[in-house]
């Protein structure tokens, strides 16, 4: 049940950020759906992947591809969709606990949670990097083919 709530609220969270980032019209829908997609993939990943980092990694790869495709459909920068859609993956909770342990002087827990937060951030960054690089190659190849056909 918590997962259903999470999927719905991931949608609403990304929807909210799309409005704050002043995304207009149909693009809001794409961005908010992207946020939901991010969390669905994360949860599905949990079924057969071992390790939370892999879940974040795969999920951010798919969301980045999704944003690149939406960007081509809507002819607008991919950042528009990616920024709003990646929000549910942002490690807010891990960051909070890291900080709270630091404040309370529980340095063992702090080190554990701190490295956890950093590793999530790295996994997301790596996912975006991999997917962006791949889609660059993919779209470059496609436009190259396109030019040669049209000539």
């Amino acid at each position: 049940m918590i997962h259903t709530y999470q999927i719905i609220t991931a949608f609403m969270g990304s929807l909210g950020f799309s409005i704050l980032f002043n995304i207009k019209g149909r693009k809001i829908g794409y961005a908010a759906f992207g946020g939901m997609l991010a969390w669905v993939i994360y949860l599905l990943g949990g079924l057969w992947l071992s390790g939370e980092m892999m879940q974040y990694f795969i999920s951010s790869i798919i969301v980045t591809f999704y944003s690149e495709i939406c960007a081509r459909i809507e002819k607008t920068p991919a950042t528009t969709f990616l920024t709003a859609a990646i929000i549910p993956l942002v490690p807010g909770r891990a960051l909070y606990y890291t900080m709270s342990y630091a404040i309370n002087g529980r340095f063992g827990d702090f080190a554990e949670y701190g490295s956890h937060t950093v590793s999530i951030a790295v996994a997301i960054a790596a996912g975006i990097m991999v997917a962006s690089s791949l889609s660059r190659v993919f779209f470059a190849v496609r436009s190259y083919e396109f030019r040669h056909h049209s000539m």
Partner: protein
Amino acid sequence: MLTKELLSYILDIGEQMLVSGAEVNRVEDSISRICKAYDAKRVDVFTITSSIVVSIQLKSGNTLTQTRRILKYSTDFDKLDRLNNLSYYICAHTPEAEYIRNEMEKVGTTRIYGPVVQYLVYGMIAGSFTIFYGGDLNDVAVSAAIGMILKLAITFIQRVDKNVFFVNILCSFVVGMLGFLLVRIGIGHSFDKIAIGNIMLLIPGLALTNSIRDIISGDTIAGLLRLSEAILVALSISFGFGLVSVFVGGMLK
């Protein structure tokens, strides 16, 4: 023909793109494409998060150089979309400087969502993430209310000083204090869920995604600048919460 006036408008486009949330690569690319479209012999653009420098060599042999210092960012993807389309149009049709000036005026007056919507959205985001991380209905109500107060706080604090770190420290302090008080009174149940919902509003998500995208496109300097800014913002959020725990005598659970 590239004139000083025209180059200044082209830089306006680049500046506004960067401010609205474009990656450095897009800004540099747009500026150099436009300049090339106007028959510049050579274009050198250098952009980092806080500055744009453009130097162009004309066919006549003269050189024009202009720079812009960027002090303030405000994410607006609708504006970015319009600027992007405008820059494609300029590349294809190379219109007069007058036309670009008029278009830029139109872009400058794009509509943003009204204040009521903004307040509601702050509440909605904070409430959503409180449920997302497992809060109950009381927590959601408290969190949404604090989210709206947070928007109010941001508006006021930004009038005093626009420094990002200052704003974030004070905002997270406000969130922490309110959350603590409301939980102490007994309206809210778990302080951590309420705090996390509101932290999501402060977290520098855009800076993080753009910094990674900058690094991939080869703009390592700009990417690292943005990344360190994101880390500093995250730290200042923690300082704000640290301040709360000083006031309430330790133990924020």
